[in-house]
């Protein structure tokens, strides 16, 4: 049997063995008051013998400062979407943490959660959301916002926990006034930290088409804005994503420019390197119609941002590398599909690796895949043996025939055949199938799903888990600003 045949046979055998690897969903939220909870980001921190998962999300459960009338949504002082839940049994059960309280100067806390914990002192956990400053809310007719809040968002707010994620309080709100004297429009937050106590938060400044990264030098410090990471004049339009190489404490920022290319910026602790052009070009924030076809604004059954994910892993000491997953559009069938890429950190070369994705499909394909996620994991034991990182990818696929979606998780491998030729392999290992879709009329439903490596847990090792928006209780309502039922779900292998 030839090498490729061996590979295919082995893959088929494994696929057969793992067809039954259906993921078990766990309900994170849903017992609270009426309303929706969606857009998730989570982290796992370890303090002593306690490992705690903290998931942040848009908490839209009933709140007196957010009122839905017959025709619009009215948002008032005191409104907050900054909610969280936590678990100390690796996600088997969850406790609702509540919502973080706004302040007089920042009277409304909005969505787009980012989360991280300090790698140095894991008692400290941080959540970043969008914020509406008093100066902007005061300018609203009657001091309240009717409809969309885009014109009133004027920065980002960061909440902090010093007890490992059990409780949070607002730590600091940040803003720039480059385009608006009352605060530029920030969107799409993300966070990361390193082993030296540096905490990073980033947003896209929509008004300036720039990525703004803020850093706290130490868990108790205030966040200060860093220099522009993309210092070659790049016009940045997407949400940023942050990851830290924990072997070197180097921060890497990824975002998409107006040309459509994914760019990276590297912070070595004292300065930003030259902008790294990856040569990868995702689709930009498209939506999917009920037929699976692409749309940009009309009749979305679901919207699909963010359109990329990346992480930093290792082949071995000093040979770190990056893997990217991103969304593309097939010219053959007009459907979204997932592709991958791998990049050497030392020479900044990226290779296109479609094998890690879903494949484009044939001309008759009608399903659409979106929300790519990728994470690396490497234990001490693996490092001691010189073994490379394990990689897990995840994405969601919409099936027009059923109107439902499937969350899939699979390994991303680089193998060598007997001739020494490199083979790139995606192994579909786990799935959460037949999930009810329940986006609001904007298409919002789970575009902040998250994937993380939990590492070893009792009785298992190398566990990867993901959070998602859960509508398994049924979809009975879709409206411009909300839908029902929408809560937070968790699953893992």
């Amino acid at each position: 049997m030839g090498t490729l045949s061996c590979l295919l046979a082995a893959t088929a055998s494994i696929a057969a063995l793992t067809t039954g690897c259906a993921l078990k969903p766990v309900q994170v939220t849903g017992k609270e008051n009426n309303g929706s909870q969606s857009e998730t980001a989570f982290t796992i921190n370890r303090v002593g013998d306690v490992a705690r998962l903290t998931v942040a999300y848009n908490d839209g459960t009933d709140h007196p400062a957010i009122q839905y009338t017959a025709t619009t949504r009215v948002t008032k002082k005191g409104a907050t979407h900054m909610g969280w839940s936590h678990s100390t049994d690796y996600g088997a059960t969850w406790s609702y943490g509540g919502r973080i309280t706004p302040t007089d100067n920042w009277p409304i806390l909005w969505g787009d959660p980012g989360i991280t914990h300090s790698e140095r002192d894991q008692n400290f956990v941080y959540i970043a959301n969008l914020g509406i400053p008093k100066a902007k809310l005061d300018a609203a007719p009657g001091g309240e916002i009717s409809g969309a809040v885009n014109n009133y968002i004027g920065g980002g707010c960061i909440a902090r926990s010093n007890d490992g994620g059990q409780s949070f309080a607002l730590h600091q709100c940040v803003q720039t006034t480059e385009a608006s004297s009352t605060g530029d429009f920030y969107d799409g937050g993300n966070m990361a930290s390193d082993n030296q106590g540096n905490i990073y938060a980033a947003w896209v400044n929509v008004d300036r088409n720039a990525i703004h990264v803020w850093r706290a030098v130490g868990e108790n410090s205030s966040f200060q804005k860093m220099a522009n990471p993309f210092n070659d004049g790049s016009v940045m339009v997407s949400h940023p994503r942050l990851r830290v190489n924990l072997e070197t404490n180097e921060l890497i920022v990824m975002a998409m420019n107006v040309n459509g290319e994914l760019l990276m910026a590297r912070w070595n602790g004292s300065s930003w390197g030259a902008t790294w052009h990856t040569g990868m070009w995702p689709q930009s924030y498209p939506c999917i119609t009920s037929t699976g076809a692409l749309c940009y604004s009309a009749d979305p059954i679901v919207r699909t941002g963010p359109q990329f994910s990346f992480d930093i892993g290792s082949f071995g000491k000093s040979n770190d590398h990056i893997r990217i997953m991103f969304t593309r559009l097939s010219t053959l069938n007009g459907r979204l599909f997932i592709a991958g890429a791998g990049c050497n950190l030392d020479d900044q070369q990226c290779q296109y690796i479609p094998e890690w994705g879903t494949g484009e499909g044939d001309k008759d394909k009608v399903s659409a895949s979106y929300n790519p996620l990728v994470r690396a994991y490497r234990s001490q034991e693996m490092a001691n043996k010189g073994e490379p990182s394990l990689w897990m990818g995840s994405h969601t696929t919409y099936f027009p025939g059923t109107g439902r979606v499937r969350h899939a998780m699979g390994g991303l491998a680089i193998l060598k055949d007997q001739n020494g030729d490199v083979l790139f392999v995606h192994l579909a290992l786990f799935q959460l199938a037949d999930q009810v879709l329940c986006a609001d009329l904007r298409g919002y439903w789970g575009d902040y799903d998250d994937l993380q490596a939990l590492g070893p847990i009792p009785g298992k090792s190398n566990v990867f888990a993901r959070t998602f928006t859960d509508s398994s209780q049924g979809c009975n309502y879709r409206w411009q600003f909300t839908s029902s039922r929408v809560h937070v779900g968790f699953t893992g292998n």
Partner: protein
Amino acid sequence: MNRLLGIFILALLGACTSTNQVAALDNEPPATERQIAERKAALSRTRQMQPGPAERFDVAVIGGTCAPKVAAKFALTACVNDKPCNGHGLRLADGSVVCACFEVRDGCEVDSFCHARSRTCTKRPDDKYHVQ
């Protein structure tokens, strides 16, 4: 090769034992020069993505003194060849720069704006899709 695949899958399926997530890898045996070369070669830029016409653009001009004012978030406007452009300057293959909104030549109509994220002309004032 099959053995490698098996190890990889078993590891992902959680059949191995492990300890804690690590950062510094002091105990790690150093890789040989050959290993390093092989690993680097695996991700060298031998296969480049060929983006489609709806994926890659060469946006040459945004803003400028005659760029029209559009009070919409995510709107792109430009001053292209000294003329207001409801979109951006797009560099063509021959090097010339024309007004466009990504795939829409001449930019957007007056009742719409060029959306930086969706890369399409979007009706004003509504942008129901990207509102928070």
